[in-house]
């Protein structure tokens, strides 16, 4: 539920959809309407109460007549927390999508088009056309380049759908390959990468697997047994992980992506210091490698020297051709 204060325009926007929503659905509980509009029940109650002073224009010097204003069933609201509009003076129809709403949904559709359950439905093309036609103004073109679905992504999706464990070879960076059997819980798709989150039978814990590092996937016939376990924070790191401190210019911070949260950064002049939790601090060498020296690993020393040695080993390839 949103805890930020509602602005006047938020409320106007909500009214334009709330009225047709209530008229279409008849009686709606305060809690349900609040959930639907992502506001607190207190805000929803206030909005519905205030609706009764909204209406058609009145003549100068005169109050509007009751039938010229919206009205609600006050008893029902006071006694049972149920909203019902008993007189309506307009706003009966659902408004068109704003350009922004259409653009946000159009981009979202392109993003989910790769999800097997969606691509199998064959509904995306029709929806794209409908949304474009139902917008008040032409939405800005926001294009999400499609990502390919390969054998691994397919297998993992099938395991999710069938509710069975999937086993595969997993090659984590800087470690020997392992064979894992995982109860799939969720596929996370972010920054163009696919991750499987699920219960790892080997580690007996929830884990996140980068699908690029997965090979030889095979569906098992083991029904999943940990589907309700909490999905881990994919990039937050575990509490007992070591913290690596890095320093970089502020304008490069977005390139750190999901490593950056509100609570792990502080600013010094034009630089930002970020604390990143990693199970192996030396793993930062790969992150630092993307910044060409503009990100500096400060602490711990093991991480700093690992970064230097990693780059030096790379450079050595070019000194001895």
């Amino acid at each position, binding site marked *: 539920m949103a805890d930020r204060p509602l602005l006047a325009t938020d409320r106007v926007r909500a009214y334009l959809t709330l009225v047709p929503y209530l008229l279409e659905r008849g009686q709606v509980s305060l809690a349900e309407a609040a959930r639907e509009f992502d506001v607190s029940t207190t805000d929803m109650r206030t909005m519905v109460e205030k609706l009764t002073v909204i209406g058609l*224009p009145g003549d100068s010097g005169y109050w509007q007549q009751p039938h010229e204003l919206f009205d609600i069933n006050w008893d029902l609201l006071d006694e049972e927390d149920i909203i019902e509009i008993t007189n309506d*003076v307009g*706003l009966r129809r659902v408004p068109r999508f704003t350009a922004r709403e259409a653009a946000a949904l159009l981009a979202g559709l392109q993003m989910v088009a790769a999800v097997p359950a969606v691509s199998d439905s064959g509904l995306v093309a029709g929806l794209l056309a409908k949304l474009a036609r139902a917008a*008040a103004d032409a939405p800005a073109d926001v294009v999400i380049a499609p990502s390919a679905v390969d054998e691994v992504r397919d297998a993992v999706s099938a395991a999710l759908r069938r509710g069975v464990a999937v086993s595969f070879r997993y090659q984590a960076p800087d470690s020997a390959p392992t064979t894992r059997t995982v109860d799939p819980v969720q596929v996370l798709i972010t920054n163009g990468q696919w991750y499987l989150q699920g219960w790892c039978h080997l580690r007996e814990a929830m884990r996140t697997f980068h699908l690029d590092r997965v090979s030889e996937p095979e569906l098992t016939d083991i029904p999943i047994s940990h589907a309700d376990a909490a999905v881990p924070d994919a990039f937050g790191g575990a509490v007992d992980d070591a913290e690596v401190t890095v320093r970089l210019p502020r304008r490069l911070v977005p390139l750190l992506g999901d490593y950056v949260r509100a609570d792990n950064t502080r600013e010094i002049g034009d630089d930002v210091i970020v604390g990143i939790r990693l199970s192996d601090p030396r793993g930062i060498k790969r992150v630092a490698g993307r910044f*060409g020296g503009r990100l500096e690993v400060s602490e711990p020393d093991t991480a700093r020297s690992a970064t230097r040695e990693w780059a030096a080993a790379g450079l050595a390839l070019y000194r001895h051709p």
Partner: protein
Amino acid sequence: MATRIPPEERQTNLVVALMATEIGLTKQQILDSVSGYRQRAETGARADALEKMFERDKDELRALGVPIETIGDPSDPTDLREARYRIPKAEYDLPADISFSPAELAVLQLAGSVWSAESASADAQAGVRKIRALGIDGDEPIIGFAPRITARETSFAPLQTAIEECRTVTFEYLKPGEQTPRLRVMEPLALLDFEARWHVYGIDVDADAERTFLLSRIVGDVTVTKKGFDSALREGAGDRALAGLRAVASRNTALLEVTPGTEAALRLGRRAKAEVQGISVPFVDLHIFADELASYGPEVRVVEPAVLRDAVIERLTAIIASHADDAATGRDR
């Protein structure tokens, strides 16, 4: 009547009033009769203050997608003193012939959940809500997939506004390898997420040619100017932008040697074609690809092109320098 009527009430009253009229209301009629203005007029608010309030309300409602039409004097369209205002139903209402099936709503609900940015997410949710207000309930939600779109660059929002309003923008753009950013003047036509990076595609006014810029290389603020451009330029812009980047990728190929079984072999292998010796991998931006290759350290060696090889060597050298043993010089910059 001393109570002040909050702006949301006044603005909603204005929408109701302008939708209830066929011929339109003049500004004076609105100020005299619509609740929220009327009371202020009665308590002696100055006429110009009320008019300003009406202009602001009109702008805010238009920003919410409410199509407020101005019907001017046909003999002098610039004279707005007697102009009438109305909201045509045909332009306000979601077209009656558009409906959504429960299966479609389920897909849209997933599509509406992908934005991690608060404002885009709120927009997507508001869109889904409108469909729900039609009385449609979705099928069972599509579970097990959490696709996410992130747009962390602050330039994203002003660029989107400029595209919507067909207005020229200016921004400072820092090309890799250059010391100072250069001012670009652009007619932005589309935003494009390609290989997990946001690009803006449009017409570079100084070069008078189509260009694609990376949002991550925009330095400072994007300025949306008052200068407009022809909205016809936007038609099909997204497809052109995508085709353009794909064409670039098909022209640029690197020949690499990778150590089998490593992270580099796995990640690059996805995009690679096997060669007699090593693999060939297409890329869009030399500098971004060099950044990625440098992160693999000794797991990959660039054979060609030479510019890419030099770019990787330069990065590795800089990393070594900035992580020198001498901690005192390294850390107290």
